[in-house]
């Protein structure tokens, strides 16, 4: 049996770990609440943009725009949204696994696609394995505002326009609830099957100056807002995943401490019993 002091040290260190995971859990919980709020307040904007884009694109059939038309796919772009830090349970590994599986399924060689990594974990994973990571963003704040994301979104849309890739997908964790999120693939570009988010949008618009000019402004904005929406969604599930992971860690630490306490008490009891036996034995020998 381990000696008393060793067990005591272990109990103490586990207690300290527990205090830390507990604190991280609470930090994540409050961040999660904010992130959820952000994602929610973003919905009206997204729906509106989608409505207008859908009604323009469907209303004016003679309108063409490079972002609306599919072209032969020579190269595919993938945006991967992960977190910058670990300790978030399966948050990062599941989305990375999802992307890797798809890549293996769809492509024969690494030349057929490029990756845009948002988040350090994803970037490091793919850079280390020598995938084609053409751009990466790390150090996004926990509550990204639109201006934080604009640069990467604009770049991603710009590279499609320049022909760096012919279609663009996003991989991220869609927030469902605190305990569950879902790896989601979303096609960003070209923009296809647009459906109005709300019913009853069939107004045929006047365009000022012209439908083409409006699509020119609107479509990049739409694609950018899709990406921003995914990042917000990803952030919400990141904080939720971290919160759950930290809760599990805290619970584990509690279990461990309880067991160690038992072992400690048993050892202490044994030591006392042994001492008494020795004293009694010593006294008996003197008689």
């Amino acid at each position, binding site marked *: 049996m381990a000696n008393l002091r060793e067990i005591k040290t272990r109990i103490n260190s586990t207690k300290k770990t527990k205090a830390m995971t507990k604190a991280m859990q609470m930090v994540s919980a409050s961040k999660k609440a904010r992130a959820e709020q952000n994602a929610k*307040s973003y919905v009206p904007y997204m729906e509106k943009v989608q409505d207008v884009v859908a009604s323009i694109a469907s209303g004016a059939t003679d309108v063409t725009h490079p972002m609306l038309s599919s072209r032969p796919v020579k190269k595919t772009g993938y945006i991967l949204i992960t977190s910058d830090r670990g300790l978030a349970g399966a948050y990062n590994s599941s989305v990375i696994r999802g992307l890797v599986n798809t890549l293996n399924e769809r492509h024969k060689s690494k030349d057929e696609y490029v990756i845009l990594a948002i988040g350090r974990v994803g970037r490091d994973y793919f850079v280390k394995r020598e995938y084609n990571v053409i751009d990466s963003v790390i150090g996004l704040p926990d509550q990204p505002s639109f201006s934080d994301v604009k640069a990467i979104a604009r770049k991603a849309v710009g590279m499609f326009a320049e022909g760096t890739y012919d279609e663009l997908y996003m991989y991220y964790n869609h927030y469902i609830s605190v305990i569950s999120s879902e790896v989601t693939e979303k096609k960003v570009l070209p923009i296809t099957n647009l459906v109005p988010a709300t019913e009853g949008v069939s107004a045929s618009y*006047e365009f*000022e*100056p012209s439908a083409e000019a409006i699509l020119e402004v609107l479509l990049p904005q739409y694609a950018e807002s899709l990406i921003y929406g995914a990042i917000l969604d990803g952030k919400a599930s990141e904080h939720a995943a971290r919160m759950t992971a930290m809760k599990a860690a805290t619970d584990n630490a509690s279990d461990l401490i309880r067991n160690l306490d038992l072992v400690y008490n048993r050892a202490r009891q044994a030591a006392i019993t042994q001492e008494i036996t020795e004293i009694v034995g010593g006294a008996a020998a003197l008689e």
Partner: protein
Amino acid sequence: MKTVQVNIVTPDGPVYDSEVAMVIAKTVSGEIGVLPGHIPLVAPLTIGGVQLKNAEGKSDFVAISGGFIEVRPDKVSILAPSAEVASSIDLARAQEAKARAEERLKGKKDEVDFQRAELALKRAINRINVHEGNV
């Protein structure tokens, strides 16, 4: 007086929601005034101020950084990357941003940076103007 519902929405949430008698906005092809019952219209906006006149003839001003306006007979929506109601504009911060952008315009010759600084300057000036109520 007839009124129309106006929504100003940004990615960071709704900024303005009210019944107004008239909307005056700056589109890329010029200034437009929208009254209730306007035919459906979509137009991109430039960086500028939007004036919203309510039924009593009082005006609210909102600084807009681009985006577009969607008009329907009973509803007007403005979607912009960012928008600030005049009363909530932080003047000191806007002036700081203006000074920063001017500084950068002097220094940089790189075209992309130049454009960005120019846009930043426009936005800052717009915010200051809207705050002071001259649109």
